[in-house]
Every structure is written in structure tokens, then in C-alpha cells.
């Protein structure tokens, strides 16, 4: 890629990044499925926050196929996977004292979770 010059800035910003990938990846789970997030503690980059590891949630939606940030962040390529919005109850994350109705939705990849 050449030097970013002033005349190309607008085009570059408008184009944005290509995180969404136009490849077919069979979904591992579907909306409504229960999942358990993995108990992983990689030294490298991961987008699975500590507070959401080894927790049970429900797939709220399937966002499609994206570059896997955990791979890309460690210089290991794109490894396209599906990204899901996973819904956790506040009580699942924070214990029985948490507000009964509240929830947290976290976007996670196939490699962050397994069917529960």
C-alpha cells in the first residue's frame, strides 16, 4: 500500500475495514441455543473478557462471518468464524444479588463457546 496522502484520506475512511468476510462458515449454534463460554486465558490477544469466561448464555443473534480477532491480533491470519450476540443474565455473571431482569450481551466468536 502506498503512503496515505491527503487526497486519499476520505476514500480510505469511507471504505473502512473489512472485518466481515464473504466466506461460508457453517454456524456452530443458532439463536435460542444455550452455550457455555470457554475457560481460556491466552497470553495473546483475545476478545473474550474475563468476566464472561465459563459462563452460560443464550445465542441472541448470528451476526455473520468475521475475521477472528484472537487470531488476527496475534498475527496469525484471519481464521473466519461466525460472531454471535450472546445474552447472559446479570445473575449468571455476577451472582444472585444482581438485578433479576438485567442482561449483558457480548459479541463472541465460534472459538469462544460450545453448546451447553
Amino acid at each position, binding site marked *: 500500500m502506498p503512503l496515505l496522502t491527503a487526497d486519499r484520506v476520505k476514500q480510505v475512511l469511507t*471504505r473502512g*475495514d473489512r472485518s466481515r468476510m464473504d466466506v461460508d462458515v457453517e454456524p456452530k449454534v443458532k439463536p435460542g441455543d444455550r452455550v457455555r463460554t470457554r475457560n481460556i486465558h491466552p497470553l495473546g490477544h483475545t476478545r473474550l473478557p474475563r468476566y464472561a469466561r465459563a459462563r452460560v448464555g443464550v445465542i441472541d443473534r448470528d451476526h455473520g462471518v468475521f475475521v477472528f480477532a484472537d487470531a488476527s491480533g496475534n498475527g496469525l491470519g484471519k481464521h473466519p468464524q461466525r460472531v454471535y450476540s450472546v445474552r447472559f443474565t446479570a445473575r449468571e*455473571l455476577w451472582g444472585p444479588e444482581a438485578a433479576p431482569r438485567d442482561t449483558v450481551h457480548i459479541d463472541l466468536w465460534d472459538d469462544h463457546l460450545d453448546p451447553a
Partner: protein
Amino acid sequence: MAPDIPQRSEHPGKAGALLDTLTGSWSDPRSGGNIDAMHTHDDHDHDDAHTAPLTETQLRVKALESLLTEKGLVEPKALDVLIDTYETKVGPRNGARVVARAWVDPAYKQRLLRDGTAAIAEFGFTGRQGENMVVIENTPKIHNMVVCTLCSCYPWTVLGLPPVWYKSAPYRARAVIDPRGVLHEFGVDLPEDVEVRVWDSTAELRYLVIPERPVGTEGMSEDKLAELVTRDSMIGVARVEAPRR
């Protein structure tokens, strides 16, 4: 009780005092062990900015920019365009227009909820950190709030660059564990039968909240409605207020 660690240069003295109390080997070789170098309180533009010596931070930035420019790796005019774009051209007025349109046009709102990126693109608001938009709507039973606990992910195309509080530890830490406490701090108190739904932007999806349209705005034009919509309401930490008569 542990002291609160200040997040911003508003409390440089406290940060310095705190760092001074850390025992052991913490020091910053780049600043020659001068802990005060990590502060930014003297980086604000003052009248005497040109006569005051540059801080370590300013020196580091200047060093990088001058070296990268000399080596032909960055073009200063391109830097200026980048800055100008996000300082003056892209901001929450974009999102306010999207929200106002959703309020007056039910078909548009459905398009927004179904495919946020495409519907927002109808306004021409496309590009970096807005490539994969998800629009979520507040209702009397669901209040949505957006955070990025891991860094600062934010929908630049519709809201511009995020405010300091959104990128700082207090919000990032508390939004997921105590959203009602956060909302209370912003002046919003919700009954227990409302679900507070927090969205942690861990991937490349970026979230825009459609706040509830306030009572008392019936018959207002789309432009006038857009003026009411605040950035904070589109993050989900505030409600939109009806105009005072």
C-alpha cells in the same frame, strides 16, 4: 478502602502521589525515571505553551511525527485531514438525524432494526468503525446501554469519536456489573421491571441506541426532533428530554 486511581489528567497530583507510593521497580525508562512525565496536565494549550518546555509526552509525539515525516511514512497534510474529519465533520449530529427519522418514519425504523448498516447508509454515514452497525431500540420495558469494556469501540460514523468517560476505567468497569448505578450517576433511574440490557462491543459490530421518543414532541418536524437527541441518549446513558415550553 483503596484509593481511586484517577483516569484523567484532571488529577495529576493524585496520580503522581499514587505512583510514588508503588514500591519496587516501576519506572519509565523513556522519561528517565521521571514519574511526572506520565501526566498530561501540562499538555493543555495554555497561553504560555510556546515558552514552556515540552513535556515528555509532547517530546515523544514530536519525535515520532518528525521521524515518520522525514522518512516519507506519513504526510502532514493527510494527518491534518484525519484530524479535521473527526474534530469537525463527523459527530453525534449524524446519529441524531438517524434517530429522528426512525421516530417519524416507522418503515425506516424497521429497516434500521433489520439492517442498521444499510439504513444508516441511506444518509451517507458509512465507513470506519461503522462498517457493521446494529441498531437497538429502547422501549418502556427494555433500556439499552453500550460499552466497550476492553478498549473504546464506538460507532464513529454516527457518533464521532467517543468522550473521555466512555474510554475510561470507571465506565468500562461498572457498565457491565452495575449499569443501574451508572445510569443513576447520569440521572436515569429505572424501575425494577425494566430490563437493563448492556451491550459489550467485543467484536466489530457497533451499536446505536434509539432512545424513546419523549412525550410532548408530537407534530415536531424531523429537524427539530434531531436537535433534541443527545449523544448520551444514543449511547444509552441518558433519556431524551421533551423541549421545555
